[in-house]
């Protein structure tokens, strides 16, 4: 127990110390009046605003955003794996799809989002569409690249055992692809939060992005910061969840 705490302190102690220091300096600078609070609210007033609005934030806006994020992530996951896997199996498909994938990522999100609003209206699907557009690319690329990961020698030895293509895919290529795949997932889930927020900024009736936009219109900087705090907390928690699954699955895959 003591050892675990020591380990933990060694890993995160310095980071936490800096965080505490930064927040203290921030608080002091604002309280002293060096920076006006409508530009940068003090941490305590952000916390206060969070508490004041906690019912609205935690019961309405956070669940709304989380729903968009999760829906976007799951659809990206399914689509990304299918497209990435398909590109691995078919060279023709790869040649056709790869340019489209790259194009989809060069289109400015802010410019294309109004189109989604036009198509899907103010329903959840316009936000999910933006989320998918930001989140599926890392999944496709990591699936595709992961399946290309070496393994030529493993392939040969399985061939001499009489394995067919499917068996080699299942027993060698998928396990070898998993580390890259999880890197993609971790990136993707963080992008999902970004995508959902942008979607909400452009047209929504609820969600943390919508809330922060309304509050910035009201010049309530502390409420804006409160929703940003919740958004990044959401990203961190989702990232950690995937890391946890990864750790469990890949425990013994280190060479």
């Amino acid at each position, binding site marked *: 127990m003591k050892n675990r705490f020591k380990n933990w302190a060694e890993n995160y102690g310095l980071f936490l110390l800096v965080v505490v220091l930064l927040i203290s300096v921030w608080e002091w600078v604002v309280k002293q009046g060096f920076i006006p609070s409508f530009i940068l609210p003090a941490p305590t007033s952000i916390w206060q605003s969070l508490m004041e609005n906690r019912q609205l934030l935690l019961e309405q806006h956070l669940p709304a955003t989380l729903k968009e994020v999760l829906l976007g992530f799951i659809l990206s996951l399914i689509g990304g794996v299918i497209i990435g896997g398909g590109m691995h199996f078919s060279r023709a498909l790869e040649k056709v799809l790869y340019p489209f994938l790259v194009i989809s990522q060069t289109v400015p999100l802010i410019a294309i989002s109004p189109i989604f609003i036009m198509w899907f209206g103010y329903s959840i699907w316009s936000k999910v569409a933006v989320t998918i557009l930001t989140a599926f690319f890392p999944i496709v690329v990591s699936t595709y690249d992961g399946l290309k990961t070496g393994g030529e*020698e493993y392939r*040969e*030895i399985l*061939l*001499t*055992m*009489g394995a067919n293509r499917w068996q080699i895919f299942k*027993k060698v290529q998928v*396990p070898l692809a998993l580390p890259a795949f999880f890197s993609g997932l971790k990136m993707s889930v963080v992008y999902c939060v970004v995508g959902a927020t942008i979607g909400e900024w452009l047209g929504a009736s609820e969600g943390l992005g919508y809330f922060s936009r309304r509050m910035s219109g009201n010049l309530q900087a502390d409420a804006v910061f409160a929703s940003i705090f919740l958004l990044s907390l959401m990203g961190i928690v989702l990232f950690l969840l995937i890391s946890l699954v990864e750790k469990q699955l890949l425990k013994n895959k*280190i060479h």
Partner: protein
Amino acid sequence: MNVLSGEFVSVIGASGSGKSTLFKLIAGLLEPAQGQIWINGQKSGKRLGKVGYMPQKDLLLPWRTVADNVMLPIEISKEKKQEKMSEIIEGLNRFGLAGFEKAYPHELSGGMKQRVAFLRTIMTGRELLLLDEPFGALDSMTKHNMHSWLLELWEDLQKTVLFITHDLEEAILLSDRIYLLLDKGAVKVLKVEIPRPRRSELIYQTEFIAMRKELELLIHNEK
């Protein structure tokens, strides 16, 4: 070049003389541009899945336990796992791997990994085994132990083995016959007349040393 049933035949040759290519041809990973490969009195077209092949690296799947690695050929041939379980446990015991069933490859020593890979090759159930420098990456002490172990095991293994090595001592100690791949495609055969069962201490006996000298001369003269 031929190998008889139940024989242990070594192939010696300089790097680049095509030893590993020869093995890939026999295993069916490559097709010959000329010449033919006969197995069990038949000209063999499709050879993949017909001979056991063990490459230089152990190539154990790092995410599988020892038992699961050994199980791999059985999974691929879609045999019943339960039926083979006792055979695998017996094999692990015989290979000095008892108690390591649930260990992962990175937890094993080099010699143990090689033994797991060898057991996996045997579990393919093929009669002909191609071993490509299986002890090449081991230190000399471990290698010595593996020789004693293999000599002991060999008597009741009843397999046909084709064995690539750079180590003359190893070749003489283990083989019934030795093929020398020399320059310009020339091949020489040597019969090892030392009776079995053999022990690894044999390497200090005069007949063994004489044999080694002869082998070295053959290689040297060619250059």
